[in-house]
Structures are given as C-alpha cells and as structure tokens.
C-alpha cells in the first residue's frame, strides 16, 4: 500500500520540531547571532547559496571526493571478500586487518594524509578510503561467510561450475550485506571527508563551513550543516532504500 507523504510525517516529530524552533529563536534572541543565528537567518542563507549556485559547487566537490575515496574502499572490499571466500588463510588476515583499521582514529588518517599528499584533494580522499574500508569490508566478509554451505552442496550435486555457483549462489547471498555496508559506509564517508576538508583544500562543504566560521558568518555554518543533512537523507532514501527494495523484491 502506498502512503501519501502527509501520512508518513510523524506527528510527534513535527511537534518536537516546532518546540526546537521556538527554543532556538529564544536562545538566538538572548545570546545574539554570532553564537546562534536565528532560524530566519539560516533560511535566508540557504536561499542565498541556492541562488548563487554555491550549494552545488561545494556539494559536488565533497561528493566527488567521497565517490573516489568511498568507491575505492568498496572496490578493495570486494577484492578482500573474494579472497576471504577463496582462502581460509586470507579470511583470517582480512579479519585482523579490518579489526586494526576499525580501531584507528579518523585524526590519524587526516594527519598522515596531509603529510603524504600535502594540501590537495587526495588528503580527504585517502582519509575517506581508510575510514570506510573496514566498515564495508567487514560487512562483505560477514556476507561471504554467511553463504549457505548447503546451497553450495546442492550446486555440487548438480555439477554447477565454480562460476555458476558464484553468480547464482554466492553473489545473491552477499549483496544484502554489501548494500548494508555501503549504506553505513557512505554515511561515515560524508561525515569523515567533511572533517578532512577543513585542512588544505579550497572547496567542499567542510572547507566552506570552516571558512564561514573564520569570517564570523555563523549562520552559514548552520546552512552548510543543513546541506550535509539533506545530502545524507537524500542518498539514504533515493539510493540505498531503492536499491534494497529492488534487490529484495523476491522476499
């Protein structure tokens, strides 16, 4: 059953939103726009970047870095998962590497990437890659391990070739794990790449947020934070939810 957008909006959430807006306005009025710009100023700022087109240049700059860094992480994760499927030894190694990467702070990669790549786009790309790799890889390896051995045995009974078993059994069982891993990984990529953009690049949401702070345009910090949230929600709904629905149509 298809529901209209009006029904999908959660009434208590709307109520909470109203309360937040009221309290926000009051605090802004008490402490001044430098500490907390009013909702009205944020809206004005948002319209401004929409008009000037700035919203697209910085969002595109951030997204293109994410696409390279996160895309690279997905590709490498697929290779790692394949290795983990083929060899038990590789599985153990991948498992350990993922654990170590997972335990490493974002800041470590930011500092290292600046040392290695200097003040260029490669710094946020590398940071995004290193942070999202363990998330996507661990999901994929788990997916590969969860492939039902009894289905593979069925494949053996009917003499399916290695390639046939891979495409008919292994890939479809692993895809839901890949989508889940990519969904979490992409959210992380957006958050992390923006932090990395504070250093040394002259475009992207992270850069413009930090720049806005430096020129004391606090309302623009809020505007760009809003842009980030919108990008995140949009990809979640448009890309990942659609993808899961398409792939899970047989359920």
């Amino acid at each position: 059953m298809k529901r209209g957008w009006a029904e999908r909006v959660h009434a208590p959430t709307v109520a909470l939103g109203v309360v937040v807006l009221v309290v926000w306005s009051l605090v802004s009025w008490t402490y001044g726009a430098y500490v907390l710009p009013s909702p009205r100023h944020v809206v004005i700022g948002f319209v401004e970047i929409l008009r000037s087109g700035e919203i697209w240049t910085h969002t595109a700059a951030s997204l293109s870095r994410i696409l390279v860094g996160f895309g690279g992480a997905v590709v490498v994760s697929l290779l790692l998962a394949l290795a983990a499927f083929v060899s038990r030894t590789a599985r153990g190694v991948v498992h350990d590497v993922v654990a170590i990467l997972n335990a490493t702070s974002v800041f470590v990669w930011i500092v290292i990437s600046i040392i290695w790549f200097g003040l260029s786009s490669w710094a946020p790309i590398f940071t995004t890659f290193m942070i999202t790799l363990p998330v996507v890889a661990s999901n994929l390896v788990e997916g590969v391990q969860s492939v039902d051995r009894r289905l593979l045995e069925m494949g053996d009974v009917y003499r399916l070739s290695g390639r046939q078993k891979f495409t008919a059994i292994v890939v479809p069982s692993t895809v839901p794990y890949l989508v889940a891993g990519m969904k979490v990984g992409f959210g992380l990529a957006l958050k992390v790449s923006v932090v990395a953009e504070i250093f040394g690049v002259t475009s992207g949401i992270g850069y413009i947020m930090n720049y806005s702070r430096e020129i004391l345009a606090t309302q623009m910090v809020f505007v760009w934070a809003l842009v980030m949230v919108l990008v995140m929600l949009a990809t979640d709904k448009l890309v990942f939810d659609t993808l899961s629905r398409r792939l899970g149509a047989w359920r």
Partner: protein
Amino acid sequence: MAVKLAVDEVGKDFLLRVIERVSFTVDAGDFVCLLGPNGCGKTTLLRIIGGLEPASRGGVTLDGEPIVAGRAHARKVGVVFQEDRLLPWKTLRDNVALVLGPLALSPAERAARAQRYLTLVGLAGFEDYHPGRVSGGMRQRAAIARALAIEPDVLLMDEPFGALDAQNRRIMQREIRRIWRDTGRTIVFVTHAIEEAVEIGTTLVMLSARPSTIRALIRNDDPGRRAKLVDDLNTMIMEEVERQQGAHPA
C-alpha cells in the same frame, strides 16, 4: 532386470563406527526405501551413494561406474534433501533451469524441460513464484522437479517429507508414487517412517542399530501383506532402537 546401483560392502567411520558393512543392489526402476533407527547412518549411506561423502570401506557403482566423492563421473544423480535447498532469490522455474545449465541443452530445451517437470509435480501456474511465496509442500515439489529435470540415473531422497504436516505428507507420498510410475526413475528414499516406506517402496532395506548392517531386505510386492509387514517392521525397528540405546548408555 538389470542392476542399476550396487552398494558393495560399504562402511563408514566418523568418531565411532557408524556403518559396519552394507551391501545391496538396486534394479533399474526400483523404488528402494532405506529404513532404520535414528542415527544408524541412513543419511550417511545416501550421501555416500550420491558421492557427497567418501566411504571408509567398500564402494558404490552406478551403471557399473564407481561413484567416489569428489571425483567426476558420467552418471547423473539427482538429490532431494531434507530441506528444499531452493535459491530463495530465483523463481521456481529458474531454480529448475539453473541445474540444467551444465547439461548440453539449448535455452529453448532448457525452458521446455523445466516447464515439463514443474507441471509433472503439479506446479503448473506457479512457475514464476519465488520459494518464499509458496508452501513448504510446494517448495519440496519444486525440489523434486529440479532433481527429476536432469533426468537422473538415480534419484536420491533424504526424508524429503520430514518437514511437512501429516496431510501434506500423505499427499506427497501418493504424488511421489505417481511420479515414479510416470517417469520410471530409479529411486532410493530414506525415511524412518515405516508406514511411509511400506506405502511407497517396492524394496525395503532395514538397517540395524549402529554400527549398522542390513537387518532385513524385503520385496514389497504383495498389497495384501502390507498390514502384516508394517507390524513386522515396527517390531524390528523397536528392537534395533533398544539395541542402539543399550549399546551406548547415556
């Protein structure tokens, strides 16, 4: 009639000796039911016959060709497992068509054959359903269609109706008997339900308690003696169950 399948002095050890020594032959077109107490190695024996598990001793030949686990052979073996083992992301039709992939068939022949066997097991009209959308009985029918579709030299079935409710079980027993008559396949069917075996099998092989040997090999060709046969086999299996429990005190 010609010997189709020969089980020759087959034995199997895991941590303990499960199958001592079992020999029997199956003629082409026979419907053999393997009976015995739980844990006596019925499933293991079936897996050895299917080449899914190596024997510790002895061997199996199908049309004179040895069946050894992990080694390729030219014979075709269809297996229906306790679970349906259908791919949930493929339709029933595609599940059947998948196993026809390795056979030298044109796409049109593949489609026609999948259709023919799905119809044979009573699934006409459900070809485009995914396994999750049909009942357990229908899933097991699809698994049978898949096994038959390769037109196997022998069809192995491992308690295929174990997960079904009583009514569906009875329906499937009648169905498998009909399918067997219609196709003339050679079937080896594992069950621990004696009534089921007497209802559908032409030859009954009763295994003893672990380590198992053949306790009785009975031709089930006199419908008048069925009630008596059920009684006899029930007595036998009770003895074997007691023996198995006595031999391995908890």
